[in-house]
């Protein structure tokens, strides 16, 4: 067995380069990889980033810190509104916003990780959020073609990892994390606790280790 390397948060964020697309797990701050985000804020100067996350943090918290540094060029989210500073930045033309219905956002990331080239969904058909997208009637119901979403780097949080990189999530802190872990070139998992391989019940592993490139111990 080859262990997945446990690296420092600072080393982890050296994988993020200017211009990258970065997925960040969490529903609001719940299940967000806060130590990795802090490292990105303090130990990286990668700029011009596209952030794929359900929210852009909260004012001065989580991704809200990165926003204040002016390092986000574009956000792909379902709910920018939870951070009024992100809304202000969009309105000031400082960041570009791509708003996606939450289920479409989740499925597009799943598709990105699963090698699916897009999918038709009835969600958003006939609305502002379908503008510019291919539409098709399927069984008489209008559908919208959605593209998969992938990233250069995914930053995810799991309550528990084993030394191989298998991940276990706790309660509603799971949310987008297992999806994002599958959909990036480099996946870095921040874990609350790192246990020996074999200590996680195999049936309880949500993210098998093949998706995880690096582990970081939560602060």
């Amino acid at each position, binding site marked *: 067995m080859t262990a997945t390397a446990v690296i420092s948060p600072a080393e982890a964020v050296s994988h993020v380069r200017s211009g990258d697309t970065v997925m960040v797990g969490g*529903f*609001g701050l*719940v*299940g967000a990889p806060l130590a990795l985000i802090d490292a990105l804020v303090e130990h990286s100067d990668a700029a011009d980033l596209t952030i794929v996350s*359900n929210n852009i943090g909260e004012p001065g918290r989580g991704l809200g810190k990165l926003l204040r540094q002016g390092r986000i060029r574009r956000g792909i989210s*379902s*709910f*920018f*509104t*939870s951070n009024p500073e*992100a*809304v202000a930045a*969009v*309105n000031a033309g400082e960041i570009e*916003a791509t*708003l*996606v*219905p*939450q*289920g*479409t*956002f*989740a*499925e597009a*990331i*799943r598709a990105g990780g699963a090698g699916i080239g897009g999918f038709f*969904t*009835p*969600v*958003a*058909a*006939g*609305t*502002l*959020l379908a503008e510019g997208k291919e539409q098709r009637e399927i069984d008489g119901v209008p559908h919208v073609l959605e593209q998969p979403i992938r990233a250069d780097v995914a930053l995810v949080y799991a*309550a528990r990892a084993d030394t191989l990189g298998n991940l276990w*999530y*706790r*309660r*509603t*802190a*799971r*949310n*987008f*994390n*297992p*999806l994002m872990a599958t959909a990036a070139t480099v996946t870095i998992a921040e874990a609350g606790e790192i246990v020996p391989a074999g200590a996680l019940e195999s049936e309880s592993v*949500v993210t098998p280790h093949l998706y995880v490139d690096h582990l970081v111990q939560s602060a």
Partner: protein
Amino acid sequence: MTDDVKSRIAARAAQELRPGEVVNLGIGIPNLIPSFLGPDTQVFLHTENGLLGVGPRPDEEELDPDLIDAAKRPITALPGASYFDSASSFAMIRGGHVDVAVLGALQVSAAGDIANWAVPGKDVLGVGGAMDLVVGARRVIVTMTATTSSGEPKVVPECTYPLTARGAVDVVVTELSVFHVRDGVLHLTELLGDANAADVAAVTSAPYIVDLEDSHGH
């Protein structure tokens, strides 16, 4: 809108739910519904951030930072609850496995179109799961006041606010009445409290058919 009005709308909407149904409750009035469900009408509450089996609000000792609902408020989980990722959660919704979504709206049209995520001229930067829920849930129940705070009707001929979905609404419960959308046509099916048909007509700009035969108590 007074708390009394909200409670009355929630109480009536609660009667639409059947035992054992899987129900997703939106923010605001829908969240008052659990307190109006009798012991014989237990439902399974689904929250789209990844839990089936939402329990009551936690007390101080039960607070768990990893346990929130879609409004990011602390919750509890009932025995038999299950957790899942966001793609699975929305697969449940779009796939028709969630029986009912109860949510608020800015406008509902005569054909059951709904606008509930954006106001013209304001930021359109938060949609969350609103579109997925109204498209996917098997029944969509709207709980809202009959008019805006400035007295404009909310049950309208055509939505003028950005649409959430077309033809998605099944039931509308306001403080005055209940409407059902049947085959794309709005029916006034019940008057609530002291309201009469003229009261409803005065605050409803949408055309509708009056069909009060199964009305309770009127």
